[in-house]
């Protein structure tokens, strides 16, 4: 008598905590973070995207309730039934998830009598997306509470559960159904970061840097597009080198999982072997899968064999799966496959003649050339050439950021961000074609 499977027809699901626990030592932010990570467990393996909303109806309402609370499943005080969630469907309550507020909800607690909120939430959200109870010995969808399941940042679903959610929604791109789950345990518990805050759309601050007059902290080619980072902002260029927006986007809102207080990045590159994106800041680095930070990060740059202090620039050399790191007047060549520095490094001066000895950042572009950025200028090294191409350096602002020479010139830097770009200054830019550049904030 297995029930017909139910599932959501949409793949983007909103959620919000409608009623928080009343007398719990877990704060609201912790509860929200645990809900975020419990949903992420499912979203990591299936093509489901969960986003938190505030004040508006959500697909998944989360309530901490006591006793009778107007559904068919009254709670019964401590122990007994601890939570439930409604399967997807036409009902108004579909997807809603209720936790018994009489339970002693815990997180990373050694208290054997407590009820680990993350473990229960993963189970209940399984219901919320369409899974029913199973008898499988190793499944989060067993009906009985089995105790904590470990750190939310490192939890991976048992295979039986992954298969069941794949049967409903398919496999998320970038997930290999046959790959064993990562089982590495953290040496020490990572701090549970705050969930992404989707609750407001803060207008850009007035102190945003101007693309035409700034020099950049980091430049990277990611998925074929160029990203220019400055402070808490970045600009993005399409594969055709069209600036997506004259206004910069906020790093925090696009690259999910970087610390909220991070005031900039030192270097960024897309790793050739797995296309993950690596961000460096000071002594730490983060690895992103698409736009979400991987669990277990940040990590120290010593993982790469780099000394404390971090790097100024990172350049992925896709042909050889090597990555060049630059710091002050030194550079290192890192073998991504062997995961170690090549012998003989660090070495002095970049291996290409004419490239400045210190850099802001560097990237390879789809034309095969490598581009090195420092200050407001850049240098181009053609594919296979040992030296900088003739005629360089050139203006980064003019050639990449759709600026006139007068704008890029410090004397003419009074132009407002967002002013229409002048035509004819850039090869095949939108402005040259008479288009307005569209705004893109995230």
């Amino acid at each position, binding site marked *: *008598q297995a*029930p017909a499977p139910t599932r959501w027809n949409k793949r983007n699901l909103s959620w919000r905590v409608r009623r928080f626990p009343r007398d719990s030592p877990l704060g609201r932010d912790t509860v929200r973070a645990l809900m975020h990570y419990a949903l992420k467990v499912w979203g990591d393996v299936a093509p489901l995207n969960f986003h938190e909303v505030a004040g508006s109806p959500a697909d998944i309402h989360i309530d901490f309730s006591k006793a009778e609370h107007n559904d068919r*499943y009254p*709670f019964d005080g401590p*122990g*007994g*039934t*601890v*939570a*439930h*969630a409604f399967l997807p469907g036409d009902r108004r309550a579909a997807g809603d998830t209720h936790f018994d507020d009489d*339970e002693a909800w815990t997180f990373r607690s050694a208290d054997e009598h407590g*009820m680990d909120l993350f473990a*229960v939430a993963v*189970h*209940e959200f399984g*219901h919320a997306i369409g899974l*029913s*109870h199973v*008898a499988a*010995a190793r499944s989060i969808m067993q*009906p*009985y*509470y089995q105790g904590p399941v470990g750190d939310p940042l490192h939890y991976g679903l048992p295979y039986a559960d992954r298969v069941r959610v794949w049967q409903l929604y398919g496999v998320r791109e970038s997930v290999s159904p046959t790959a064993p789950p990562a089982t590495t345990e953290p040496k020490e518990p990572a701090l549970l970061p705050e969930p992404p805050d989707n609750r407001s759309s803060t207008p850009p601050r007035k102190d945003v840097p101007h693309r035409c007059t700034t020099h950049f902290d980091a430049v990277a080619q990611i998925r074929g597009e160029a990203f220019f980072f400055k402070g808490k902002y970045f600009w993005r260029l399409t594969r055709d080198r069209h600036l997506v927006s004259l206004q910069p986007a906020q790093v925090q809102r696009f690259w999910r999982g970087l610390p909220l207080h991070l005031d900039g990045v030192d270097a960024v590159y897309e790793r050739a072997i797995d296309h993950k994106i690596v961000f460096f800041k000071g002594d730490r680095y983060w690895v992103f899968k698409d736009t979400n930070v991987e669990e277990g990060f940040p990590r120290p740059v010593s993982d790469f064999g780099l000394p404390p202090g971090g790097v100024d620039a990172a350049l992925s050399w896709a042909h050889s799966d090597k990555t060049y790191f630059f710091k002050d007047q030194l550079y290192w060549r890192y073998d991504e496959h062997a995961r170690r520095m090549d012998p003989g490094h660090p070495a002095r001066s970049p291996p290409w003649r004419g490239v400045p000895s210190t850099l802001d950042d560097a990237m390879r572009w789809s034309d095969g050339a490598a581009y090195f950025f420092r200050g407001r200028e850049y240098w181009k090294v053609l594919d296979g050439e040992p030296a900088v191409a003739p005629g360089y350096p050139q203006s980064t602002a003019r050639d990449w950021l759709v600026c006139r020479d007068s704008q890029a010139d410090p004397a003419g830097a009074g132009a407002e961000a967002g002013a229409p770009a002048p035509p004819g200054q850039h090869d095949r830019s939108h402005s040259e074609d008479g288009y307005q550049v569209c705004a893109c904030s995230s």
Partner: protein
Amino acid sequence: APAPRAEDLSLGVEWLSRFGYLPPAADGAAGRLQTQEELSEAIGAMQRFAGLEATGVLDEATLALMRTPRCSLPDLPAATPARRRR
């Protein structure tokens, strides 16, 4: 096995009904009684689902599991009274 105590039996029937192994208590005519055969089948189903040996007997291990904290949703869709051919 020793016969279960009355309160354990009461807990067991209520539990089995709540989680889908027996028809809901309010189903059908008031005062409906489960037959011993029905009860034993339901206990066996519950034991199989929980990974216990399916004896059909309300033993200590089964009762202990019934007292374990759990999700409120039924394990099986609500059971309906069986119709039997004469």
